[in-house]
């Protein structure tokens, strides 16, 4: 276990040590202490390592993550796991705005609540939120899955493309072109896997969820709407 005191050694030293881990490494377990809400902790890691952050983080923790498993033992600030490519990020507390934004792959688990714009423009990431999500979540989400055990705020899935949204609780309102869709057997199967991966299978069952997706009405220009522009 490599223990890194962020208060003493600083962010640049941490991230350059983590960036240096390429391919095979013996240093597979890392612990970051005294994060104190610092920005960009463990951003840009590209190695199969496990990094535990003991405390709450600021902007962009685990951004662009590839391969790594990053565990945040606190809450995360705005843009956690933004543009994640692969790997896993698990947050014990809450996540601030735009968690998992533009994520292309991997798994983001938020055990508390996520605030506004969770999964905005997601492009393949899977996000499992044990609590609630805020307004404008999954805005223009292109692919991947967003699973919410609690409630969703206003304008869920506005201008949605092909991401799948599963919400167990209430949805305050659906955004433009987002509709409720039928749960088919493959969706129950998918949800079962996602709940398990997201450490939420003890809390929720697939049949408790509703599915939301794109009505696909905004995909193409509609000549009948020409006068509206």
């Amino acid at each position, binding site marked *: 276990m490599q223990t890194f005191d962020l208060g003493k050694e600083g962010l640049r030293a941490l991230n350059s040590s983590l960036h240096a881990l390429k391919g095979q490494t013996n240093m597979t377990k890392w612990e970051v202490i005294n994060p*104190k*809400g*610092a920005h960009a902790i463990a951003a840009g890691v590209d190695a199969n390592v496990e990094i535990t952050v003991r405390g709450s983080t600021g902007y962009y923790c685990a951004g662009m993550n590839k391969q790594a498993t990053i565990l945040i033992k606190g809450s995360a*600030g705005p843009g956690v796991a933004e543009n994640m490519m692969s790997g896993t990020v698990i947050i014990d507390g*809450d996540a*601030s705005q735009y968690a998992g934004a533009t994520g292309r792959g991997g798994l983001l688990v938020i055990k508390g609540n996520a605030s506004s714009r969770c999964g905005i423009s997601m492009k393949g990431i899977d996000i499992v939120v044990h609590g609630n999500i*805020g307004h404008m979540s999954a805005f223009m989400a292109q692919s991947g899955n967003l699973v919410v055990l609690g409630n969703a705020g206003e304008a869920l899935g506005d201008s949605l493309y092909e991401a799948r949204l599963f919400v167990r609780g209430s949805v305050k309102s659906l955004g433009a072109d987002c509709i409720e869709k039928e749960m088919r057997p493959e969706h129950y199967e998918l949800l079962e896997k996602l709940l398990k991966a997201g450490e939420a299978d003890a809390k929720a069952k697939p049949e408790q969820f509703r599915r939301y997706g794109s009505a696909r009405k905004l995909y193409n220009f509609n000549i009948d709407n020409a006068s509206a522009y």
Partner: protein
Amino acid sequence: MCGIVGLFLKDPKLEPQLGALLTDMLITMTDRGPDSAGIAIYSSAGKGLGKITVQSANPDADFANLDGDLKEALGAPVALLVKSTHAVIEVPIGQLDAARSAIAHLRPAVKVMSSGENIEIFKEVGLPKDVASRFGVAKMGGTHGIGHTRMATESAVTTMGAHPFSTGADQCLVHNGSLSNHNGVRRELRRQGMSFETENDTEVAAAFISHKLKQGEALGAALESTLTDLDGFFTFVVGTHNGFGVVRDPIACKPAVMAETDEYVAFGSEYRALVNLPGIENARVWEPEPATVYFWER
């Protein structure tokens, strides 16, 4: 950007440390707003006394014998404490308005930063650490306080353009964001008798709330009406003689984190600003909801 910090103490034991805690929080927010910084701090002047904080570009000339001149004009005791470019003037509470008029007459170049029973405001251009040290903020005690680090967008980097803005007795407001309808609202408020020192959008928000309070609205209701009448991006933190309030616009792009313990309620633009507060490990930490008014009064 801009950074906001705020601290409302519930436990009187922390009161002597208010300035020190706020200074640390303010300096942590330097990279959100290195242009200028300011702080509003609430502490009682003593029974029957009120205070006016004034600022001058030529403090040596303007503050020389200001207490003597003011005493003569008012026929009442006056205490003057000079702190760099600012000075705090104590007068009997009933003489606050008379003192303001007298200052305007005696020292026309002097600007009034705040006036009231408890409030003092210190603000200047420069890095937060320099601003805090020139006024000795860390040594100040009090019941609650609000600080701001500014990255200017809507008006020039000047002392008067720095936050907090005070537009009513013991009231102040700081802002992260930018308002788009401030010119229209300012025109309307001017018609209703409010006066303005700057072209700044935040001053309009402060005056908007002061105007509502003047009309007899409660702090919560006044904050509520910012959601319908002010257009733009905002996280506001406001102070009154006994209260502390927070409101964010419905889009809520501008960050905000709050923490509450039995000892205090704290606000920070980022969690970083709160990490050195006593007992933060066990505080309830949350992100204030969009379009939701929060306030605490003692």
